[in-house]
């Protein structure tokens, strides 16, 4: 077990290195010279050369990469090419909204979806189960902005509450005001993760339900509730944690789309801006942060899968 997890952590570390290579060299093939972009067309060649030396762009790529990696690890993400502000400052101003929306989505969306999924697994084949499956099958394939549009139409035009596009500052607002402020993005993301979570948690519990010891419990005459909560659920925890971590990792795309859709400032809109202005320093820094989050969640998913599987824990 420990050696398996250590091995997985090792693979995770190698993955992070590979990711940093992809991001660094991927942005290095950018046409145009960073120093030239920063100084503008009127700069003299001497100025550009001096500036290149200051940025370290005259060094070989591999040395640049190592310096960049060292800086990243020590928390220095460089200076934005577009706005001349340190990336860490840009992130400090923006991260709250992204973190707030993601954490609340997880806190609200995960328990509700799991509950619905487990309920569906308790009564498989019933009208409730089939209805839920139909809804989640439809939602799972729909793009985030479709869900968002439907919600906006519903909230703004049917219920006549909420604002379609989140505007105004969030400063000085309490937690509950913030929740109201971000109600639409959070609800959209909840729907996005719910569609997958309901399906997968239902499958995870049903999978356990078909094992022989459950059959044994049924034959012993154990009540349905007790079977689900004492026998099945405890063994389904591993797969469910796996499913939750996987879906939170997939949330990365959703967060980006939702931030652009509702037009509030966050890390995702920052990286999209970076792509539009070709600010590669910004893309490198933020890209690494997003990918790291993703890799860590995947790691948790895998470890949960190991931990829950007795056959993997005690290999022959």
């Amino acid at each position, binding site marked *: 077990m420990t050696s398996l997890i250590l091995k997985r952590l090792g*693979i995770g570390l*190698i*993955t992070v290195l*590979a*990711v940093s290579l*992809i*991001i660094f060299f*991927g*942005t290095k*093939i*950018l*046409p145009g010279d960073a120093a030239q972009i920063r100084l503008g067309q009127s700069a003299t060649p001497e100025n550009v050369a001096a500036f290149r030396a200051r940025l370290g762009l005259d060094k070989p790529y591999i040395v640049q990469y190592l310096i960049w990696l060292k800086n990243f690890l020590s928390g220095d993400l460089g200076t934005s090419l577009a706005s001349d502000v340190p990336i860490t400052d840009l992130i400090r101003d923006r991260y709250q909204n992204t973190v707030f929306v993601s954490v609340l989505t997880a806190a609200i969306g995960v328990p509700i979806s799991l509950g619905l999924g487990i309920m569906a697994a308790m009564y498989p084949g019933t009208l409730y189960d089939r209805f839920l499956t139909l809804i989640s*099958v*439809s939602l*799972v*394939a*729909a*793009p*985030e*902005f*479709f869900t968002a*549009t439907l919600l*906006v*139409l519903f909230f*703004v*035009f049917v219920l006549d509450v909420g*604002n*379609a*596009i989140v505007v105004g500052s969030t400063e000085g607002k309490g937690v509950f005001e913030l929740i109201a402020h971000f109600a639409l993005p959070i609800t959209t993301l909840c729907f996005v993760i719910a569609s997958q979570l309901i399906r997968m948690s239902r*499958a995870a519990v049903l999978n356990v339900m078909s094992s022989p010891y459950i059959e044994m419990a049924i034959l012993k005459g154990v009540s349905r509730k007790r079977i689900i909560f004492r026998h099945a659920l405890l063994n389904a925890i591993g797969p469910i944690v796996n499913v939750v971590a996987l879906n939170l*990792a*997939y949330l*990365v*795309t959703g967060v*980006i*789309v939702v931030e*652009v*859709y509702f*037009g509030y400032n966050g890390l995702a809109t920052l*990286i*999209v801006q*970076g*792509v*539009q202005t*070709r600010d*590669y320093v910004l*893309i490198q820094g933020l*890209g690494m942060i*997003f*990918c790291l989050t*993703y*890799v860590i969640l*995947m790691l948790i998913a895998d470890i949960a899968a190991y931990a829950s599987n007795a056959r993997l824990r005690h290999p022959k």
Partner: protein
Amino acid sequence: MRTSKKTEHYVAPFEGDVSFDELPDSEPIGRFRFSWSGWIGVTVVTFWVLIAIFGPMIAPLGENDLPFPDDYSEFQMPRPGAWLGTDESDRDVLSRLMYGAGRTIGISFAATVLAYFLGVIMGIGAAISTPRVDMIISRINDAFLSLPTIMLGLVVVAAVGSSIPVLILTAGAIYASVVFRLARALGQEIMVMDFVEAARVRGEGRWWIISREIWPNAAMPLMTDFGLRLIYVILFISSLSFLGLGVQPPQADWGSMVRENLGALSYGASVIPVLAPALAIATLTVAINLIVDDISAHSGGKLSKRL
């Protein structure tokens, strides 16, 4: 007892006295029928494919033409001349939707075909090569898989800019890594089966084994997976376009149409310019999903479990 009898017959099937009913049972090849949800899927997909192909021919206007050149108000409600209203630049939403169909579906389909071309060749290639080569290819592939696809897309678009060929190549390359994994797993599963062993013992070449022994057995699961992959590619391309990093204006594409017209939601004007393209993508992907679900339920639901 029964099994041993079977094996006996199977070992010497060419002795002459074995009829085909005595060969090992194989899955009965039942005629595949769609359920009602499958038929809905087929109908909707056919509809959109026809629009994608013939859209530019039957569209009432060009994608950047103005239906009411004298009237400068945006987001107009539907009326004769513009049956779905007008968008933020007073253009006809219906015509743009029809032009956009070809681009969204065409790019996604081309990218998925490319992903399959690369993924299947590499995957089956890795499955039949030496363990060392297999491990190297798989590790590199895992690194790509462990990145959020949208991030890879963002990095590529930042580096080389966005154009239709770039979109196809990027999406194709990104999703090839997923196909690679499936093709490799299938290849390995089939590689250890008796008939492949037999072919190898007969001294068949590598290409013969791939094309005649492995491919026919891997084709069906791969086809179903193709549908799923197509859904993800459509969502990927649409998301990139929605972020303003995919198909570039003034060309129409469903994802970018949603982005262009987001303003309609805050002005309280006609919301059709946002709703129509979003609904188009959703109906298309959900319809493909219905077909895939139907087919995988037919093949024992194995596929939906694996994904």
